[in-house]
């Protein structure tokens, strides 16, 4: 949005640019470091890494951590379910949050305030593990795929983020459409939603990442169903296995080149990060490239 013709650069402007560049470089260095460090550890022999002192480059290179992770039983099933829940879960969550946000952002909607309050409260209350478990069980959600996508479908946080964005859209658009006889459904689908792409992308990202990373629900509700396991749950189990076995009284001889919890965790982290890094640029264009709201200008 700032693609303006280069005018003469004022002193203050120059100072700002220099400051900003330095700030960004520092920021990138600090935030990139832990990731690179994790990458280096994931490519280093586990036992060797115990000695510490690995920073940006592996000392004793090995693929072993990755092969250990990738040989995990049920990993394919887990990956399939995780992809499925991410796609379906994100889609359902986006649609339902958007609808709810649309409803409560209508200025003339008579229960806007009450419905908002109703949802805001849900952010701060929690019945606890066991009551929730009992509820899901009585709804028949245990041992089912639905437990991944139905319970978290609407979240007040995401809804409020969308609502705030929708409220920023000028009323004039909606009013003119209403004059043309458009109903709420048309306004939502044809006028508001196209303008909400950046916030939809944001919320989609939040939900997708949440879905991608979650494993507790798989453990709690679908423990007995191997074909409903998720990628992260399998990785958690693997990690727990490795942790357990590195302190078990197995023969400790000739164990050079073995994996450790730290090295496996690093490899698992990189493996789960990769797909998100790959998908991110497709979403990123919605909130970085300065999308102009073409039709908004009156």
């Amino acid at each position, binding site marked *: 949005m700032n693609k303006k013709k280069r005018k003469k650069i004022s002193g203050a402007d120059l100072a700002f640019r220099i400051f900003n560049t330095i700030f960004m470089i520092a920021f990138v260095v600090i935030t990139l470091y*832990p990731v690179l460090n994790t990458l280096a550890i994931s490519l280093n022999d586990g036992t060797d890494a115990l000695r510490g002192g690995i920073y940006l480059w592996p000392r004793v290179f090995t693929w072993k951590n990755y092969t250990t992770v990738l040989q995990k039983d049920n990993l394919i099933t887990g990956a399939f379910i995780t992809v499925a829940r991410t796609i379906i879960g994100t889609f359902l969550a986006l649609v339902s949050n958007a*609808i709810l946000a649309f*409803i409560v952002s209508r200025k003339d909607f008579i229960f806007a305030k009450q419905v908002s309050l*109703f949802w805001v409260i849900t952010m701060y209350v929690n*019945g606890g593990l066991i*009551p929730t478990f009992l509820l899901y069980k009585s709804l028949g959600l245990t041992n089912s795929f639905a437990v991944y996508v139905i319970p978290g479908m609407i979240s007040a946080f995401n809804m409020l983020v969308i609502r705030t*964005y929708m409220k920023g859209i000028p009323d004039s658009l909606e009013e003119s459409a209403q004059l043309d006889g458009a109903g709420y459904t048309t306004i939502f689908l044809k006028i508001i939603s196209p303008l909400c792409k950046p916030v939809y992308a944001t919320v989609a*990202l939040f939900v997708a990442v949440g879905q991608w990373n979650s494993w507790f629900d798989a453990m709690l509700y679908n423990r007995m169903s191997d074909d409903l396991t998720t990628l992260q749950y399998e990785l958690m189990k693997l990690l727990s296995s490795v942790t357990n076995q590195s302190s078990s009284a197995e023969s400790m001889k000739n164990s050079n080149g073995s994996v450790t919890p730290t090295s496996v965790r690093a490899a698992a982290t990189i493996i789960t990060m990769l797909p998100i*890094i790959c998908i991110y640029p497709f979403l990123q264009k919605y909130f970085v490239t*300065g999308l102009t709201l073409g039709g908004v200008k009156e």
Partner: protein
Amino acid sequence: MNKKSISLTQLKHQKVLLIWAAVIVVYGVVFYYLPLAGWVMAFQDYKPVTGLLHSKFIGFDKFIRLFSDVTFLRVIRNTLAMGVINLAVTFFMAILFAILLNEIACQGGKKVVQTISYLPHFLSWIIVTGILHDALSGTGIINQLLLNFNLVEQPINFFAHEKYFWPIVAFANVWKETGWNAIIYLAAITAIDPSLYEAAAIDGAGRWAKIKHVTLPGIKPTIMILLLMNIGNVLNAGFEIQYLLGNGLVVNVSQTIDIYVLKWGISQGDYAIGTAAGIFKSVVSIVLIVICNRIAKRHGEERLF
């Protein structure tokens, strides 16, 4: 607008909205409000064996026990302090980062910086705290720098002193979440009408002026909403990071409500304590957001409800 009487025509007109709102509210009741029946646990000597329906009622015993325990009061203080510090710092940094990022002229650079900035979000706390421990250890980079610039004579043992604990936690939060938190603001910035920037430029506004008069007001509603939501979360200052960074020497400042609940409740099979603490947190959160919401309303700002 609440005071207006509801007319039939209005209802008819809003039929679609009402139906959908009703459906969604039913969903909310089932998935968010029904499990709250579990709150009775706080007033029971709950045993999984007897369940919610048949456990013995003990009234406010658990609440009394919580609030008569000096440790619990200290734990509330720690949680609040870390909650507020984290909120202030992460909030400020995310907005600052989003705005500065938006000012980068080079599109490629902007994308790269942003992509990198959110990556630490995907690292688990155990990895982040491990690296932080390394960096702050006696031979770590921070002490090396301090020694090289002659700022200290002896390496500082950062984890042995209570005064460093809260700042370290705050820094770790900033480190891990700034890029991720900034995404919302970046999305909000895209909604700002470019013509406003052009108008400001014509008025001779420089960068600072544009940020102050166009960007900030443009994302103000988003800021307000997130601020309100996060204020309700100050008692959720976390658990993992304090648990991983804490040690016996700093336990007075490192324990949070969640750690306390784990120690005295969950790991002892005492469900009531955990539930009672949860209710306490919920009540505080809701009171806080209701107050803040009212303040926001008085000032004509965006609000939650």
